[in-house]
């Protein structure tokens, strides 16, 4: 049977049956209320404290919602909520998004991806000019909502340095994109186990001329791994941006590690067919389109350009 058909049927079934949280373990607790019932109470005609926002949220999803360009989705991935059904709530997600809008009106957050080079200026109590600027390669971008984080990596004085920034922290003064590009992988943590030359960028690097709706290129550079030991078992991960490793200690070691990596409990090929797992770890497309429909409306008021220094 066609897999896409199974997936479609499964999602249909799940949605008609109602909320998924009934399956979760925590439901036997007496002193708590289910997500669906709470939403009913918020909008019920007996509730005298209800507000207009709560009404709007419970509107059924229609096909008339505004179409969101795919590039907008890609460059602002943090607006989708955490897909764990045990911890979801409409009002809490809305409130968090409102805070993000307010911050976006104050500070310019440019478009960037994992693999592009950024420079972040931060208010620092202990720095000499009370601000510190760090330039580096973005090797990670993750977490939802106000928790959204990035990690920059660079080499200073032959020492690899990494900085983690929370994008919605009020300490951040400015975010500049020096070079806008992508890499072949979604996370570049393997650069920790590569020669330092691959993650070296001068701190006074000149920024690229970036204009609106610029096409994003992918950097197809393939890096070399250092000899083992590594921080993770990279032979078990399918890495695109890494050359095939040759520095094995012996042929015996190579065969042994290859055999271990090909074990079924390591590869976990059944996870590709696990539809429930996929459903639990993602947000349904209808809902994500409803959320991004709101975000696109608000994006007109965001700060779209940096203020020019006089």
């Amino acid at each position, binding site marked *: 049977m066609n897999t896409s058909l199974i997936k479609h049927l499964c999602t249909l079934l799940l949605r008609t049956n109602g909320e998924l949280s009934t399956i979760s373990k925590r439901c036997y607790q007496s002193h708590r209320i289910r997500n669906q019932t709470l939403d009913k109470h918020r909008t019920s005609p007996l509730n005298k404290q209800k507000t207009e926002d709560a009404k709007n949220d419970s509107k059924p999803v229609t096909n008339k919602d505004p179409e969101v360009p795919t590039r907008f989705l890609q460059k602002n991935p943090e607006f989708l909520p955490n897909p764990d059904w045990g911890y979801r709530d409409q009002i809490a997600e809305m409130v968090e998004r409102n805070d993000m809008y307010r911050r976006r009106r104050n500070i310019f957050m440019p478009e960037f991806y994992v693999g592009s080079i950024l420079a972040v200026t931060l208010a620092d109590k202990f720095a000499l000019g009370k601000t*510190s600027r760090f330039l580096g390669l973005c090797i990670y971008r993750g977490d939802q909502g106000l928790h959204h984080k990035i990690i920059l990596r660079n080499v200073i*004085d*032959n*020492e690899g340095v990494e900085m983690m*920034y929370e994008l919605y922290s009020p300490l951040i003064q400015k975010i500049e994109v020096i070079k806008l590009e992508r890499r072949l992988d979604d996370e570049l943590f393997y650069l920790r186990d590569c020669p330092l*030359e691959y993650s070296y960028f001068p701190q006074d690097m000149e920024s690229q001329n970036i204009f609106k709706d610029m096409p994003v290129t992918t950097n197809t550079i393939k890096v070399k791994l250092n000899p083992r030991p590594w921080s993770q078992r990279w032979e078990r991960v399918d890495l695109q941006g890494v050359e095939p490793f040759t520095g094995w200690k012996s042929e015996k070691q190579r065969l042994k590690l290859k055999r271990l990596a090909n074990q079924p409990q390591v590869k976990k090929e059944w996870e590709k067919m696990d539809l429930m797992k996929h459903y639990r770890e993602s947000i349904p497309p209808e809902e994500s389109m409803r959320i991004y429909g709101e975000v696109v409306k608000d994006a007109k008021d965001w700060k779209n350009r940096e203020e020019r220094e006089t």
Partner: protein
Amino acid sequence: MAQILKLLQVASSALPRVVQCNFRTSACLSELQKLSTVQVVDNSILGRSAVKRGKKAKIIHVYNSAGIGKIGDKVLLAICGEKKHGYIVGCKQKQKPNTPRFDNNNVVLVEENGTPTGTRIRVPIPSCLRGKDGEFTKILSIATKFV
């Protein structure tokens, strides 16, 4: 593209060669505790001789209630058959936001009276150390770069 490659070549010539080693230097959490190895980053003779011999410095004691060293903690080291005090100046462990994480565990050697043994620190050190009082002012005075 060509410019980057040129840059890389220039950079690689300035960088030290990677020495192959067959043992793990720290546990998966990279916590600094007793018997974990560290890198001495000042230009003292002891530190340089330890690098030449290929024997890293070992932590014998952490002056701390938790027993696990963080940035700014005082430790006792064993280098080249000697006991020496030192301060942790950079960690490999996962850090909080806005504080730097380094590829190595860096330590600066200190005499018994608190003056640093070397005259210069070769790597950048985190600027949050400026918030500490006491003996740290002497170490900050020999630092070259802050992150």
